[in-house]
């Protein structure tokens, strides 16, 4: 973990309520896709955890959805504005288990961390397939960015206004070596039931500190108690215990 200042380079709306912010700062602690950063935003008391979408040298890309006070303030940040940021948080995805043709399943704001993951897997010569799920056409983002990586992309919308009608689980290809997923919990549960191989899930939870001190985001797993912010947010399929 590192605490440092990141400066906004650009901040633009890319879909309904969804923004892409590029910041500049010390990204040295960000070691794997699926990790997150924790930003001090305006007068909000708690930091805001945001998954890392991409890192290019000093440039950190965050794609986030406006859901409350903190993200609303973020969406108004102008170039040059600075954020006190904790980087290198969470375990991130383990790429060594991917096999030759991994499948990436993202829903809504669960899509961003899969971008850096796809980029890394492609650079390792893997044949990557991506399924992106959204509620409706206006919310679709990053389809072109994934395509530019040279991966197979399928988009699904729940209302059928774009791509395949239905959820990511309705648009899954049949053949894949392993899977990685991130999205809302109902989607993760559906992915858990529908997938035939092992895989990794990225979870979300309300956090206090984001770095393992407060025990605010603990969950029960097959292998014991884990902190979503520290031993997570990525858990392997075999260790997940669904609460309800």
């Amino acid at each position, binding site marked *: 973990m590192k605490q440092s200042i990141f400066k906004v380079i650009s901040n633009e709306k890319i879909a309904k309520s969804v923004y892409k912010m590029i910041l500049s700062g010390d990204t040295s602690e960000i070691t794997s896709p699926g990790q997150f950063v924790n930003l001090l935003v305006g007068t909000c008391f708690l930091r805001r955890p945001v998954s890392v979408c991409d890192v290019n040298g000093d440039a950190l890309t965050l794609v986030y959805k406006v859901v409350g006070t903190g993200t609303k303030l973020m969406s108004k940040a102008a170039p040059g504005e600075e954020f006190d940021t904790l980087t290198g948080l969470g375990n991130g995805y383990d790429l060594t288990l991917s096999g030759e043709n991994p499948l990436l399943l993202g829903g809504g704001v669960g899509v961003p961390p899969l971008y850096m993951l796809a980029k890394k897997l492609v650079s390792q010569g893997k044949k990557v397939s991506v399924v992106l799920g959204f509620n409706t056409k206006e919310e679709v983002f990053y389809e072109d960015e994934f395509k530019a990586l040279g991966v197979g992309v399928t988009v699904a919308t729940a209302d059928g206004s774009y791509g395949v009608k239905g959820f990511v689980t309705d648009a899954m290809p049949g053949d894949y070596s392993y899977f990685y997923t991130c999205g809302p919990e109902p989607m993760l549960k559906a992915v858990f039931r529908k997938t035939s191989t092992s895989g990794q899930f990225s979870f979300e939870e309300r956090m*206090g*500190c984001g770095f393992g*001190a407060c025990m605010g985001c*603990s969950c029960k797993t097959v292998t014991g108690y884990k902190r979503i912010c520290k031993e997570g947010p990525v858990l392997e399929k075999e260790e997940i215990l669904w609460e309800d």
Partner: protein
Amino acid sequence: MGRLSVDLCGITLDNPVIPASGTFGFGYEFAKIYDINILGTFSFKGTTKEPRFGNPTPRIAECTSGMINAVGLQNPGIDKVISEELPQLKKCFSKPVMANIGGFSVDEYIENVEKISAQEQVGWVELNISCPNVHSGGVNFGTDAKSAAEVVRAVRPVCKKPLIVKLTPNVTDIVSIAKTCEAEGADGISLINTLLGMRIDLKTKKPVIKNIMGGFSGPAIFPVALRMVYQVAKAVAVPVVGMGGVSKAEDVIEMMLAGASAVEIGTANLINPCACRNIINNLPRVMDEYSIEKLSDIQGGVLNG
């Protein structure tokens, strides 16, 4: 004795800054970002006899200048703390540590205190009779003077280290409970634990926290905490450890003027992992600004006013 050093129950602290229990784990997460030996000491995560998962999530809610937590004493249990956490801590912390101990019955408190106070690394036992997040847990002992007296009386003979009793502010008369604890042999009083609070999510129309209520902490509670520290310090002769919303060097000095011998810092660590280091670094400058030569000179400064 340096400018910042203070005495806590006969042990000299290099400075009065003590990360509070539940916000500092067993120290290692913080030892990765700064040398935690610069601290006066720290109070480790509240420990019970059995390992505990704690409450269901969400356990955290944001507030204006503060937060609510309902963690519920998640800890690995006292035997693991002794066999695993303390040896691990020894690698990054060479000072006596404050052991925060919880319990669900008088017998459990006795057993836990006896075990933990026998550990060489432990300098003080902070008896948590004030956790707001555990039903039929510690807080019941802390909200009633008779129960508080019973548990302090029971553990005092088996406690081999100074016994500091941590009080809840969620009572009508905190002074009478503090005086009762002192009368039963407490070597010090620490206060305040969190204030019972609640938030409701307007989108779901439901409480943010699964447990409905939780402990409210952060800068918002500082004036309430300061007032209670003042009232208790005025009423007891034993040292008082002040806490509640402390987030900067100025707050530490206010707490000491109100009668605190040392000061715990909790929630600030969660927002800024370097909060305690920054406070320690800033203290000399702030003392200069207010013409304070030594912290021990101003301790209890307003008590006789």
